[in-house]
């Protein structure tokens, strides 16, 4: 008993240190018709389960209370009853059938991916998501932006701790959006609770799912299938906007792309590349190769002193551009702009005591992209 009190005291003392937490007990109703149907079904079963518990435990505790030896209760010959056996086989069967109807209906609904307005291909990578708007010339990655300091408890955690990304998936409301899910490496699962969408992203195969969002808002989720060390750090943010805003956003994205293309034509100095390269490295490479370039051998090799990073620049570029199939090292040729690739390679060759001294210019990367 004393221990229990002490433990609770400890617990109470610690509670105020945690900001922003709440005591949510149940599912969210969500913002799609599917999620509401799922919520209703969940509540239905929950009530049924509670009712079953009340009856079952009620009878049990009643007899525990009354039929105890200490009250002088004698045991009775009562150990077989076909009627009862039949009864408690049939009643659960009926209950199950009652549940099955709405469940089947909801399932049929979730499999209906026909006639979508927008198709988006979602690809899981260790550990980020890639969104490709099919039919539009738009394709980008979405990466966690929570600063390492917050994760390492060196600074105050913000409200959206671990649930924030650089580029959210932007979609219009009231449109049927079809998702085509796949993966580049291991199995991930794309999950946004408010949309009641959770589907595995499986390498080499495509899964379909769909949603139609009813309300404007930002909906956050997380990867839901263990996918390696940073499984807990690949969130999903969906920004649902009106159709008008969506059109504006699309146009903006296309404009941005052109600016990017122009940047690779500019003249980049080594210093500028190094500065940019560090940023690119921290964001895209440090998860595996670590901020200090030491990697986590043997799985993630060090870049510091790596024969690739110290060797011919062409091999280095090829490694980063194409990746190493069958390992966690994905090809970055499609993920990063030419400037970013040039910068990160230049950075890797000249950081942490790597002193090759050369640099790669964005135009060289462009050439590779052009299919040389």
């Amino acid at each position, binding site marked *: 008993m004393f221990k*229990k009190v002490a433990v609770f005291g400890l*617990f109470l003392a*610690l*509670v105020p240190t*945690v*900001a*922003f*937490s*709440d005591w949510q*007990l*149940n*599912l*969210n109703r969500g913002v799609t018709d599917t999620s509401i149907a*799922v919520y209703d079904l*969940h509540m239905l*079963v929950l009530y049924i389960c509670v009712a079953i518990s009340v009856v079952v435990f009620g009878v*049990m505790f009643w*007899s*525990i209370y009354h*039929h105890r*030896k*200490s009250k002088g*209760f004698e*045991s*009775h010959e*009562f*150990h077989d009853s076909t009627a*009862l*056996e039949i009864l*408690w*086989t049939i009643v659960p*069967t009926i209950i199950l059938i009652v*549940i*099955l109807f709405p*469940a*089947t209906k*909801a*399932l049929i609904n979730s499999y209906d991916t026909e006639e979508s307005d927008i198709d988006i291909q979602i690809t899981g990578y260790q550990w980020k998501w890639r969104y490709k708007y099919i039919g539009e010339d738009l394709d980008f990655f979405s990466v966690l932006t929570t600063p390492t300091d*917050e994760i*390492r*408890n060196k600074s105050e955690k913000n409200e*959206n701790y671990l649930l924030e990304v650089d580029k959210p998936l932007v979609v219009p409301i009231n449109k049927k959006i079809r998702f085509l899910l796949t993966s580049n490496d*291991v*199995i991930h*699962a794309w*999950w946004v609770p408010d949309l009641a*969408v*959770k589907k*595995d992203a*499986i390498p*080499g195969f495509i899964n379909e*799912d769909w949603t139609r969002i009813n309300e404007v808002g930002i909906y956050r989720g*997380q990867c839901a299938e*263990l996918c390696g*060390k940073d499984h*807990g*750090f690949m969130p999903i943010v969906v920004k649902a906007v009106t159709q008008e805003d969506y059109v504006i956003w699309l146009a903006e994205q296309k404009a941005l792309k052109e600016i990017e293309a122009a940047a690779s034509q500019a003249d980049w100095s080594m210093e500028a590349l190094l500065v940019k390269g560090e940023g690119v490295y921290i964001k895209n490479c440090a998860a595996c190769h670590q901020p200090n370039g030491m990697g986590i*051998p*043997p799985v993630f090799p060090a870049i510091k002193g790596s024969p690739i990073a110290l060797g011919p620049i062409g091999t280095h570029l090829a490694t980063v551009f194409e990746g190493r199939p069958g*390992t966690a090292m994905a090809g970055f040729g499609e993920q990063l702009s030419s400037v970013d690739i040039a910068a990160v390679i230049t950075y890797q060759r000249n950081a942490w005591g790597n002193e090759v001294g050369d640099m790669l210019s964005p135009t060289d990367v462009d050439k590779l992209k052009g299919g040389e």
Partner: protein
Amino acid sequence: MSTQAADIDHGDHDHGPAKGITRWLYSTNHKDIGTMYLIFSLVMLFIGGSMAFVIRAELFQPGLQLIEPEFFNQMITMHGLIMVFGAVMPAFVGLANWMIPMMIGAPDMALPRLNNLSFWILPFAFALMMSTLFMDGGGPNFGWTFYAPLSTTYAPPSVTFFIFAIHLLGASSIMGAINVIVTIMNMRAPGMTYFKMPMFCWTWLITAFLLIAVMPVLAGVVTMMLMDIHFATAFFDAGGGGDPVLFQHVFWFFGHPEVYIMILPSFGVVSQVIPTFSRKKLFGYHSMVYAIIAIAVLSFVVWAHHMFTVGMPFVGELFFMYTTMLIAIPTGVKIFNWISTMFRGSMTFETPMLYSIGFVVLFTIGGLSGIMLALAPVDMVYQDTYFVVAHFHYVLVPGAIFGIFAAVYYWLPKWTGKMYDEGLAKLHFWVSFIGLNLTFFPMHFVGLAGMPRRIPDYPLQFADFNMIVSIGAFMFGTSQLIFVYVLIKTLRKGEPAEQLPWEGAEGLEWTLPTPAPYHSFPTPPTVE
């Protein structure tokens, strides 16, 4: 535990235990081997539990404080594997070893040397498995379900040793199960027909069957992993015409029956204990037997309920949803029969009974959340969240583990010839009971609120409940030290136990003197 058994061993033809360490190393005695199994399992419970402590300490607060994510993943994987294969299954085999010969009137297990072999594989297998934690790149970090390709192409190099450890474990389980099944089929005393067998033997008969049927499948799936890793086969690689989901199908074909392997023997224990302390025969013996058989048969056709989100074709999803829900019916029959056994009995509440009642209540809660998970459209939301973690700890901890505790307290007097300290044992129960609910109940809430499982760090809205969970876990874990203390105290200065320590107990095991002689029934008793 059975060191005392030697003292009163006065049979003239049967030899007592050998002296020294070879008694254990070379044993062919079902009680000694059972004891070794039980001790091994207790050690594993503590190792696996310490890993749970590490997990809960890291999750005490948001942010990464104690361990790195890679290590966290190794901890959850090893925790799951050790608890399942190291703690629960060996404990059940230990109980089977001790009790089945005594319950059916046999002198020993049918194949005593095989019995010793299946035990001795275990320490080697776990040594191999745990040594991977110290290898370059760390131990297995892909969850106890080791889905490909995370466990093949993307696995740390130590995975090869993990695979062979699983092979060893599988071999041990299959041999153990063959032994049990043969003992039950061939060693029953005259007159002990199948339908006179104690419930514990029935549940183990079915469990052994499940083991023999599915452990080879597990061996098959890890073998395919091995081939994918070292010989570039394409079983789980779409580029060569395989499918990562194929891994999951084969794994869960083993995995789902496996969860019943971890619960059926507990069903058996509870079916022994409740009638004893209700002073009444087990209600509906026959329907209990049919229910176990039904559960076992159904368990082969429900596996893909673990895979509702992998995008199975629609009919598959429907099929697995329906069959899974069917399991509620035979399981319900069991629950209702236990309650009817208590009904109009004359109950007392010694520790084994407390554990059994705890079992019935908490297992039902876990079973009901299982039914919620079985609904495919809603499972799209529950899948891989803490709701699932809550479900399976409710069926495993108060299910499997409470069943084991009930069994140990129930038969301890017969094993050791001494009575345990009832007061301390009750304390153990209550602290465990409260700690357990404090640990696993709030997991339902965080799960529904959206916390994924297998993450070392979490968004802030889950912070409060996680702290409660961690506190509960420390409470539950520490209370197991009471258990160890009770055991030691019983052995060292327990009161001598009577031949029939429990007023309402029936069965052949109670006809033996206390403590049970080294060889149970050299000449078979006759059951009328």
